[in-house]
């Protein structure tokens, strides 16, 4: 299992592509610093930066890039064959990739969010954001890992989920919020450090339960799908 994780990490980070992960976190920190430097009141800049950029954009997009990258690229170019022709339980393979994806996403997102939260309010707020973003990273990564196995265009479906489901519908149709990971993250962080910036529309028990449903359910389904991974004849 650790070998799978090692290959995944090398594939994800060992190349120039990893630089793509940098602009968003840097932007987040940069904006927070600018606002602080100009002494703008956190009531004004907290919402757009922490929620509008951090939780609504940086967290899902980074989780998407990493989550579809750990498995999707291997399925796409066929190198998954080398991982699958080994006597490894499929559960171990999925868990290794999930760990790498969630870990990389969580670190990439939690650090700038902690800084932004610290600058906006307090250490406690920063830590609340860290906890929320870790939970969100795990749930998102499980979802996108599953999408990589279920469909051939996981990034597009993931984008549709983030943009259309969470972004557009979540704003106007209140029922869809129950299935929106972004809302769980907001609710969890709000509970740990209540501030005026986070407006949790989903109750905390629902948020925790649904996050677990996404994380565990997604993982189990992904394990099942990997076990019946098929390669038809004469691909490429």
């Amino acid at each position, binding site marked *: 299992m650790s*070998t799978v994780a090692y290959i995944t990490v090398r594939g994800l980070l060992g190349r120039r592509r990893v630089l793509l992960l940098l602009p968003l976190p840097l932007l987040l920190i940069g904006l927070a610093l600018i606002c602080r430097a100009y002494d703008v009141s956190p009531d004004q800049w907290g919402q757009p930066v922490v929620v509008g950029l951090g939780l609504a954009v940086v967290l899902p997009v980074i989780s998407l890039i990493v989550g579809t990258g750990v498995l999707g690229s291997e399925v796409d170019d066929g190198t998954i064959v*080398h991982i699958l022709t080994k006597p490894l339980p499929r559960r171990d393979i999925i868990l290794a990739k999930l760990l790498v994806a969630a870990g990389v996403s969580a670190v990439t997102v939690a650090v700038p969010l902690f800084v932004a939260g610290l600058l906006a309010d307090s250490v406690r707020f920063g830590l609340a954001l860290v906890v929320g973003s870790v939970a969100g990273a795990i749930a998102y990564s499980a979802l996108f890992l599953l999408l990589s196995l279920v469909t051939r265009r996981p990034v597009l479906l993931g984008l549709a989920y983030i943009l259309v489901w969470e972004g557009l519908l979540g704003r106007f149709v209140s029922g869809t919020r129950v299935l929106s990971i972004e809302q769980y993250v907001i609710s969890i962080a709000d509970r740990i450090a209540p501030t005026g910036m986070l407006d949790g529309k989903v109750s905390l028990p629902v948020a925790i339960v649904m996050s677990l449903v996404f994380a565990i359910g997604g993982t189990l389904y992904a394990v099942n799908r990997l076990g019946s991974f098929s390669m038809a*004849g004469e691909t490429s």
Partner: protein
Amino acid sequence: MSVVELENVSRWYGNVVAVNDISMTLQPGVTGLLGPNGAGKTTVLHMMAGFLAPSKGAVTIDNSPTWRNPGIYRTLGLVAEREAVHGFLSAYEFVLACAKMQKLPDPAAATARALSLVEMTDAQDRRIETFSKGMRQRTRVAAALVHEPQVLLLDEPFNGMDPRQRMHMMELLHKLGDQGHTILFSSHILEEVEQLSGLVQVIVAGRLAASGDYRRIRRLMTNRPHVFAVQSSDDRRLAVALIGEKSVSGIEVEATGLTVRASDYGSFTRALPRIAIGEGIQLRKLLPSDESLESVFSYLLEA
């Protein structure tokens, strides 16, 4: 000694039947899976390798099914047709990772052994994305051999190899076959199959058209006359004498000799020396000219 068995295996996609009721047993040694493009060779190989479920029938290795059974990969190695390999790793790192994932007790030693088997030890520290096609192929074969599997499946392994590499790979496969491994390789290039193995499984349009030693298969095709090239001291007189023989169905006289079409292999081969001695003609050359795999194959395709 492992035995791969397919029992009445079919695979269809909607209305398209890719593999149609194939039953075969692979014994230790080298077997060639032969067929034109699109015949279903890759489908059969993927089913044997556990990457495709049969729609009907059972695919087993040593009586355990290949589908949804990661445990068989302890005794199975697959070299797939697609060239894909983790390019950012070096050859050594890649084969070592495969050895570790196979849970071998001494991965480093196994890696060194596998790499020297395919003659990749010099280039082992370079990244795979800098390799030529043949080197990539050999690296993948090393990765498939690192755990010394009983069964080795290769899908078009000689694609893109130059003649020297091909010879070397054939020697390697011969050696492994002699050691008792069960090796199946697919190809649509007849010379390769002829050089590498006498045993073939011929797949045409999803059906198993023939299996076994291809020379014996040829003899079983009694509705096709056998063709012989004969040279003698007096061709024309021999031709006149032969045409009276019941087992001969046609003779062509050419400057280079006779081309004799015989409907019955056995009777003809007994009759020929008798006639030659009776006429006092010396036979200089007698060659069955259509016992090559190519003619067997083309007969099977036309059938």
